[in-house]
């Protein structure tokens, strides 16, 4: 056997791996119902954190929209002329962390106030316009994280023409804090469910090992190495993980499809054209890899534990 050169050995090994790869699939397909049930358990365990992750992504998208609505109001000093205010607005518009600046002159502000407040007559009694001119600054979406908005606010506040700079960010901060908690919760849940998948795969493989006890004994008797005996079980774990991940993908995809109609209807009622985002390819890839890895690791642990116990006597 040692006369075979390395290239031949590598080719033979690759061929054997491929054979075992499909052999283990064939073995599983002989009992489609039990394969389906195990894969479904794994699938549900994987679908929960994946689904929550996608929903969280959507929530972020919505809150991102709200974030954009968080405007900074700059009340300019009374000494600032109309011309100066307009030039400041032009300056600010050129900065790329700012999406939009709208200017409300003192006169416009007075008019608006007169129309809306109902104090029109009282204001007429005043000799001077008491209202300052206002710049409404809307941060660009890419720069709308709470810290960035706060930094911008601080900077604008220091501007010599600005009297008061105001932003009600408290609710945005709270929302982010809540989402942080939810995100952490999803991570913990994902960890626990990953553990569950490991246990499910491990237990399934343990049963498979017991069912094939006789075969393992024969293999050991005729000189099969541990690696050789382990191989079909590892590939079985691989298949369980893969099928579980595929089922999880289908579950999440279908759920989002079912939700997207009502969500769009709701969004329309809020005059919002929000669209529920689907499972993106990055998440799907992570889901598949996680499934396969958990399947492999689960079966590795089970095989490592139980293979040694089976010795020919």
């Amino acid at each position, binding site marked *: 056997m040692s006369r075979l050169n390395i290239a031949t050995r590598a080719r033979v090994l690759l061929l054997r791996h491929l054979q075992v790869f499909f052999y283990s699939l064939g073995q599983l397909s002989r009992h489609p119902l039990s394969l389906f049930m195990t894969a479904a358990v794994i699938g549900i365990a994987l679908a929960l954190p994946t689904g929550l992750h996608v929903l969280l992504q959507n929530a972020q998208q919505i809150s991102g929209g709200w974030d954009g609505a968080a405007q900074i109001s700059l009340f300019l000093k009374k000494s600032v002329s109309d011309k100066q205010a307009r030039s400041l607005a032009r300056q600010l518009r050129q900065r790329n962390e700012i999406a939009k600046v709208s200017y409300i002159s003192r006169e416009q502000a007075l008019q608006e106030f007169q129309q809306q407040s109902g104090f029109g007559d009282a204001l007429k009694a005043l000799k001077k316009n008491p209202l300052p001119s206002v710049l409404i600054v809307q941060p660009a979406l890419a720069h709308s994280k709470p810290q960035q908005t706060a930094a911008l606010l601080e900077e604008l506040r220091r501007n010599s023409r600005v009297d008061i700079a105001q932003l009600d960010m408290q609710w945005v901060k709270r929302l982010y804090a809540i989402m942080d908690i939810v995100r952490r919760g999803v991570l913990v849940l994902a960890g626990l469910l990953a553990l569950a998948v490991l246990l499910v795969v491990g237990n399934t493989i343990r049963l498979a090992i017991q069912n094939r006890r*006789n075969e393992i004994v*024969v293999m050991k*008797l005729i*000189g*099969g190495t541990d690696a050789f005996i382990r191989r079909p079980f590892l590939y079985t774990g691989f298949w369980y993980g893969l099928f579980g991940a595929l089922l999880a993908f289908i579950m999440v995809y279908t759920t989002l499809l079912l939700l997207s109609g009502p969500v769009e209807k709701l969004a329309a009622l809020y005059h919002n054209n929000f669209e529920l985002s689907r499972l993106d390819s990055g998440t799907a890839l992570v889901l598949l890899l996680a499934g396969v890895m958990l399947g492999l690791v689960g079966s590795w642990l089970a095989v490592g534990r139980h293979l040694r116990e089976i010795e020919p006597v």
Partner: protein
Amino acid sequence: MIRFSHACKRYPGGYDALNQVNFHMPAGQMAFLTGHSGAGKSTLLKLIALLERASRGQVFVNGQNLAKISRKRIPFFRRNIGIIFQDHQLLFDRTVFDNVALPLIIAGLPQRDVGKRVRAALDKVGLLKKERVYPITLSGGEQQRVGIARAVVNKPPLLLADEPTGNLDPELSREIMHIFEDFSQVGVTVLVASHDLDLISQLPYRQLTLKAGRLIGDTDPSPLEQVG
């Protein structure tokens, strides 16, 4: 080929299955291991195949001290020994061909050589036509011959057989023994454990007799009588 030097095997609980066994079997010899059941025949074969390890004393196979073979090396050691069991130890979910091919697959032989070697081994035991069937459809004697084909397909220098004719009628038993003789004649060392004294006494080979774990008899017919 095989050398036992004061080998003892004590099982947990204090039962001595083998006690101070000494013998030497040169390469190419064929011998029978006899004795009542419980005399230690199976234990002796297990020590040779490293299914058990000697509690005291030493066992050498092909010049190797078996005590020095680590657990990891055992599979590679066993590939040099063809083992035949009374209960065949065949895999019933695979065809005869796949059963016989298993040692070659384990050893990593290229696919094109596997077919040739398997058919050669099946031809030797007269089962060439049965390669596609499942072992369950075969008779006891045929199953045993599949077991023999599997044991020899890798061309091991040493064959061990534990009661290979245990469940077979005299006619079939004789056939099986003839197969072993054929291998012996091409230089394979063959050690057969059997309590079938009627059959053994008709054959001109060395007999090692065990009783309660001790080697009490070692009769070697004169070399002139030995074939080959």
